[in-house]
C-alpha cells in the first residue's frame, strides 16, 4: 500500500460495501436453501444500490432498491414459499468446481483490462444541458434524456414490456 495520500471516508465506505457485495454474491450461489438465497440476493442488491449512491447516481440507486429489493426479491421469496417442496440442493450441477478455473481467469483478465485502460472520464456526447441550472438530483436529466436522445429506446422498452406481459399470459393459458 502506498500511504502518500490517506483514504477518505468515501473510499473506506466503498471498500466495505464492495466487499459486502462480492461476499453476498458468492453466498447466493453457495447456500443450499433457496429462501436464504433470495434474502441474500436482496441484501446484495441493497449494497449495489449503495454503490450507486456513492457514484452520485441517486435515482438509479433508488430504482435499484425499489425494483430489485422491493419487487424481484420479494417475488422470488413468495414463489419459494408457494412451492411445497423447496429444492434444497443443486446436486445436478457437478460443474461447479470446474467452473472456478474459467471464472478466475475471467476475473483476472477483466481486472487487467480495466486497470490497463485509459478510461475516458467525461462523456463525449453532446447532450443538451438540463434546462434549469440547479440540478437537485439527476432525475430530471434522466427524464429529459429518455424523451429526447433515448426516445426510441424508451419506446422499444415499452414494447418489450408488452411482449413480456402477453407472453406470460399465453404461458399461463398453456398451463391451465
Amino acid at each position, binding site marked *: 500500500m502506498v500511504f502518500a495520500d490517506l483514504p477518505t471516508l468515501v473510499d473506506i465506505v466503498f471498500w466495505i460495501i464492495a466487499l459486502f457485495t462480492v461476499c453476498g454474491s458468492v453466498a447466493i450461489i453457495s447456500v443450499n436453501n433457496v429462501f436464504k438465497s433470495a434474502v441474500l440476493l436482496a441484501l446484495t442488491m441493497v449494497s449495489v444500490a449503495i454503490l450507486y449512491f456513492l457514484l452520485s447516481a441517486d435515482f438509479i440507486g433508488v430504482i435499484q432498491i425499489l425494483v430489485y429489493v422491493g419487487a424481484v426479491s420479494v417475488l422470488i421469496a413468495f414463489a419459494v414459499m408457494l412451492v411445497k417442496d423447496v429444492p434444497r440442493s443443486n446436486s445436478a450441477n457437478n460443474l461447479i468446481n470446474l467452473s472456478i478455473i474459467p471464472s478466475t481467469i475471467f476475473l483476472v483478465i477483466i481486472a487487467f483490462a480495466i486497470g490497463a*485502460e485509459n478510461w475516458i472520464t467525461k462523456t463525449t*456526447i453532446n447532450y443538451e444541458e438540463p434546462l434549469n441550472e440547479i440540478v437537485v438530483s439527476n432525475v430530471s436529466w434522466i427524464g429529459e434524456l429518455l424523451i429526447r436522445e433515448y*426516445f426510441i429506446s424508451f419506446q422499444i422498452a415499452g414494447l*418489450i414490456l408488452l*411482449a413480456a406481459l402477453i*407472453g406470460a399470459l*399465453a404461458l399461463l*393459458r*398453456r398451463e391451465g
Partner: protein
Amino acid sequence: MSFQDFLIISPEIVISFTAISVFLLDLFINNKKFLVNVSIAGLLFSFILTLGLSNGWLIESPGVYAFFSSIKLDEFSLFFKVLIILSGVAVIGSSGEYISSNIESKGEFLGLLLLSITGMLLLVSSVELITVWVSLELTAIPLVALVALGKNDTSLEASLKFLILSAVSSVVILYGLVFLYGYSGSTYFNDIFSYISSTTSSPEDLIVLNYGLLIGIILLVLGISFKLAAFPFQMWVPDVYQGAPTPITAYLSVVSKAAGFAVLLRIIYSVLGGNDFSVILSNLFSIIAVFSMTIGNVMALRQNDIKRLLAYSTIAHAGYLLIGVASLNISGIGENLYSGPQGVLYYLAGYAFTNLTAFLLIIGVSKSIGTFELSGFAGLRKKSPLTSFVLAVSVISLLGIPPTVGFMSKIFIFSAAVNTNLTWLAIVGVINSVISAYYYLRILKIVFVDPENNQSEIKVSKSISLITLIGMIGILLLGLFPSLILEIAEIAVMSIVNI
C-alpha cells in the same frame, strides 16, 4: 424529432400496431384465420412502406438518421428489412394451418411473432448502443414465449433453456457494450468511430494500449454468437429448434440469424472502421467459423430427427457465413475490398429462400406423417413427387451444388476468403462441405430410394405449396443470376462502411 423521423420507422410502427390489433381482435373474433390475414396484411403494408422508403416516395433518399441519430435508414438496413419482412410473410403465410391445429393461443402467437419482427427491423437499422441492445431484447423476449407455445412436451424445457441462455447472451453483449462506451464515452456509432480513429495512428497502437476495447469486442462478438447460432453459443440450438413450434424454428433459423449478422457487420464496418481492427477481428471470426462449421457438420452426421439435423446444419451455415465476415481486407488494397460482407449478404438472402423452403415443407409433410423422424420421410417420392422434388432442390442448395443459390453463395464466400489471404479457411470450409454431403445426401436417399414404411397420405396445404414453390424458383433464379442480389448487396455494404 420531426415527422420524417416517424416516417423512417413507419414499417416498424405499422407492424407493432398490427401486433397490438391482433392482440385486441383476438378477444372479439372467433375466426382465427382472420388474424392470420390481418398479420399478413400488416406485414405487406409495411413491406410497401419499406419499398417506398427505398425508392424515394416517402423520403428523399436512403442514408438519413432519425431520433437523434439512434436510427439510420440506409441501403443496408433496407436490404435486411426486406429480407426480414418477406421471411415473416412466408412464415406466417404458410403456418395458418399449423397454427389452427397446433397452437392454443393463436392471437398471442401471431402478435408476439410480429413484435419480434419489429425488434428485428429496429435492430438492423439502429446505430446506437442502447438502441441496439434494447432491440435485441425485443427480438428475444417474444421468442421465449413463442418457443413455449408448442404442444409437445419439450417446448417448455426448450423455452426455459432459451430464456436463460438468451439472458446470458444479453448480459455478455451488454458487458461488451459497456466496455465500448467506457472506452469512447459515447453510445453513438459515429462518435465511437471518430473517437477510435482520432486516438490511433496505427493498428498496433490501438491493439496494444486498449485492452478494454479488445475485451469489449470479444464479449460483444461472443454474445452475438447466440443470435447467429454459432460457436461458442451454439449449444442451445438443437434443443430449442426441436422443441419449438416448427414455424418458429424456421423463423429462428433465418430471421434471427440474419439480424445477428446485420448487427455484427454494422459494428465491424461502422464502429470499428474495417481496416484498423482487421487482424484481430479476422482471427477471431476465423476461429469461431472453424469451430461452428466443424461442430455443426460433425454433430449432424448422427441425427435422426430432421429438425435436429437442420439445427446442426444452421450452425454449420453460420460457420460458412462467418468465413465471409472474417474476410476483412487487411491490406486495404485490391479489387474487391468488400467481397466478404457482400458474400455474406448474398448468402443470407439465398439461405432465407433455401432454409424457409426446407422448413416449411417439413411443416407440411410432418403434419401428414405425424413425425419428425427421418425414417418417416421414406418413400416420399412416390407419395408426393412434387414435394420431394422441391425438398430435393432445397437440400441440394443447402449442400451447395449448382445451379442453386447455395452453390453460388459458397463460391462467393470462399473466394472472398482466398482474396483476403485466408486460403486455409476456405479449405476448411470446403472440407466441411464434403462432410455435410453425408447427411444431406442421406435425406435425399431416404426420400427417393428407401421403400415407404407407412401408408399415410401426404397432403400439403395450398399456402405451403405455393410459398415453397416460390422458394424453389428463388433458389434456382438467384443461383443462375446472382447479380440480382449482388448488386444490391454491394450498395448495401457500401452504405455502412465508415472510412
